[in-house]
């Protein structure tokens, strides 16, 4: 079936997470919202995969479906050798402790009535881990995310800043020593200077704990800075998968459009880039064929009829577009 293709998967490598043909649909009145339509991805140990896209492209739905929050409409999600879809509740909870989610709004992600010292070890309590060395463990966790245990231990979320709350969220997601961390726009509600602190924190935690990470964001520069590999989504489909080091050599017209839209304080060149037309079509009735064709400068008759499938255009770079040719190696 013409999904978005699976050419970019790496079946020969050791993989922590394998997602195959993931579909997420939500009922909406008489129709349904096609949030994610046939997404496939895999994650190697210690790798960071960035998922990039605008609001409504299904990137958050995809991240949550991987966590089974809620379970996807169809498709498979494997964590190590455990198939997560269709697991019974008890085993699902066990599997989920190896995967943690960090959300966009850190303040609403924390129970406002609990203190920081209880919030960070909530996961451990659920799993009945000993309370003997609890205090030292709390302090270690808080220090590891750059918080001063003395100051914040007894506080409640409303007494902390947004950046501090996000640090608490990260601390508690690391408490269970997960294999995979899924970050859904973890820095988009934060100020620039705080954003840099959190990004550095995630980067150091990944190195120290050998985490695999799925990093979901709309900011192309943020995604590039933190990821090894970037997957670009548009309206529930994959446009392009490529190593983040060669992101600027992206070929898919949508990735090019995103690149051209970046306002950069340094070169102030954003204003000279080509004008962009149109907005995201409704995910209730996505366009036939290639979903980007309504805004694409290259679109032709063929794009209406036939859906493009991911194919390798350069080593490690996979593009789903009829009008992109593999450039000649010179």
């Amino acid at each position, binding site marked *: 079936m013409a999904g978005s293709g699976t050419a970019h998967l790496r079946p020969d490598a050791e993989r922590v997470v394998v997602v195959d043909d993931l579909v997420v649909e939500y009922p909406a009145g008489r129709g349904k919202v096609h949030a994610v339509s046939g997404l496939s991805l895999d994650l190697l140990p210690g790798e960071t995969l960035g998922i990039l896209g605008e609001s409504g492209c299904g990137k958050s739905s995809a991240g949550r479906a991987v966590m089974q929050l809620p379970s996807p409409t169809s498709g498979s999600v494997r964590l190590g050798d455990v198939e997560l879809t269709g697991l019974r509740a008890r085993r699902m909870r066990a599997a989920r402790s190896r995967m943690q989610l960090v959300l966009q709004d850190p303040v609403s992600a924390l129970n406002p009535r609990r203190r920081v010292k209880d919030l960070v070890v909530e996961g451990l309590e659920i799993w009945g881990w000993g309370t003997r060395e609890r205090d030292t463990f709390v302090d270690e966790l808080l220090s590891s995310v750059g918080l001063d245990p003395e100051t914040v231990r007894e506080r409640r979320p409303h007494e902390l800043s947004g950046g501090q709350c996000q640090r608490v969220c990260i601390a508690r997601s690391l408490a269970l020593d997960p294999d995979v961390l899924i970050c859904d726009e973890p820095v988009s509600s934060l100020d620039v200077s705080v954003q840099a602190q959190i990004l*550095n924190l995630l980067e150091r935690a990944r190195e120290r704990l050998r985490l695999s990470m799925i990093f979901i964001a709309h900011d192309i*520069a943020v995604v590039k800075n933190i990821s090894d590999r970037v997957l670009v989504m548009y309206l529930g489909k994959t446009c392009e998968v490529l190593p983040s080091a060669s992101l600027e050599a992206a070929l898919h017209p949508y990735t090019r*459009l995103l690149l051209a839209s*970046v306002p950069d304080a340094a070169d102030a060149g954003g204003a000279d880039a080509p004008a962009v037309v149109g907005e995201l079509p409704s995910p209730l009735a996505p366009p036939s064929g290639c979903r980007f064709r309504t805004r694409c400068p290259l679109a032709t008759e063929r794009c209406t009829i036939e859906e493009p499938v991911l194919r390798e255009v350069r080593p490690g770079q996979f593009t789903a577009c009829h009008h992109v040719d593999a450039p000649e190696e010179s």
Partner: protein
Amino acid sequence: MSTPLLEVTDLRTVFHTPRGDVHAVDGVSFSLAPGESLGLVGESGSGKSVLGRTVMGLIGSGATTTVSGSVLLGGRSVHDLRPAERRRLWGPEVAMVFQDPMTSLNPVKRVGTHLTETLRRHLRCSRADAVERGIDLLRQVGIPEPARRMRQYPHELSGGMRQRVVIATALACDPRLLIADEPTTALDVTVQKQILDLLASLVAERTMAMVLVSHDLGAVAGRTDRVQVMYAGRTVESGPTRPVFAAPDHPYTDALLASIPRLGNPPHTLLRTIEGNPPDMGRPPEGCRFAPRCGFASARCAEEQPVAAVVPGGREVACHHPILEVSRGR
């Protein structure tokens, strides 16, 4: 240089709260010539939005607020006008675009009503005239099928379209000054670029002056003539946009720019961060407010408030130890 359209001198906005006085804007001065655009940047809590609103006259002295200093718009003091006179100013002289286009439109009124209301009130034109002008305004801000859009309600439009309607409403009476407070923060990157380009072209076409308030340095970079960087209620640096961003003189501007992830960085780059948090505006530090977080701070910075001094290149920098060309070794 022609006479300034807007002249703000030593403006102070103090909120009296139960926890003490909060000096949100603390002695800010600037002027704006007709057709000139100014970027007002800073992190949350820097006072940039309060400054925008005080200039507009939306925040004035009252039981809980004290405004001092002066705001002269076309030679008239905004804060000494009677309320009825000030209302006549809003529209033909100065108009404002807010961050969230959904909450600045009335959800039970049609798009057309928003436009014709303003037109009929200020220009005293007939209903049919107003409708015709409204359609023309929607066309100017790039809304397709303007006649049909006039009859729709705000919820029927996308976020980008709504913001265009808000901009059209603000432009209805052909203001001489437009204050845009984070106009694109709620929008997607590709749409953000469209809106910023639209504002920039409207400013050029109408020789309208614009104050663009934003936390996003990139958004301000390509589209303003001058930039003013705020920290904790005060201006730290101001000057021509391009040179300021290319080689900042104030350590805060420098650190802020360095903490933005760049597209040109290789993956897994650690960013330079600004340690600590912005000060509590109820109890700001003595002397330079950035001193506790500044890498260049000396004993003098903790005691003596730096005064804005003109440095070569037409910039003003409020710092005892500015990073001037000499120390940069150029």
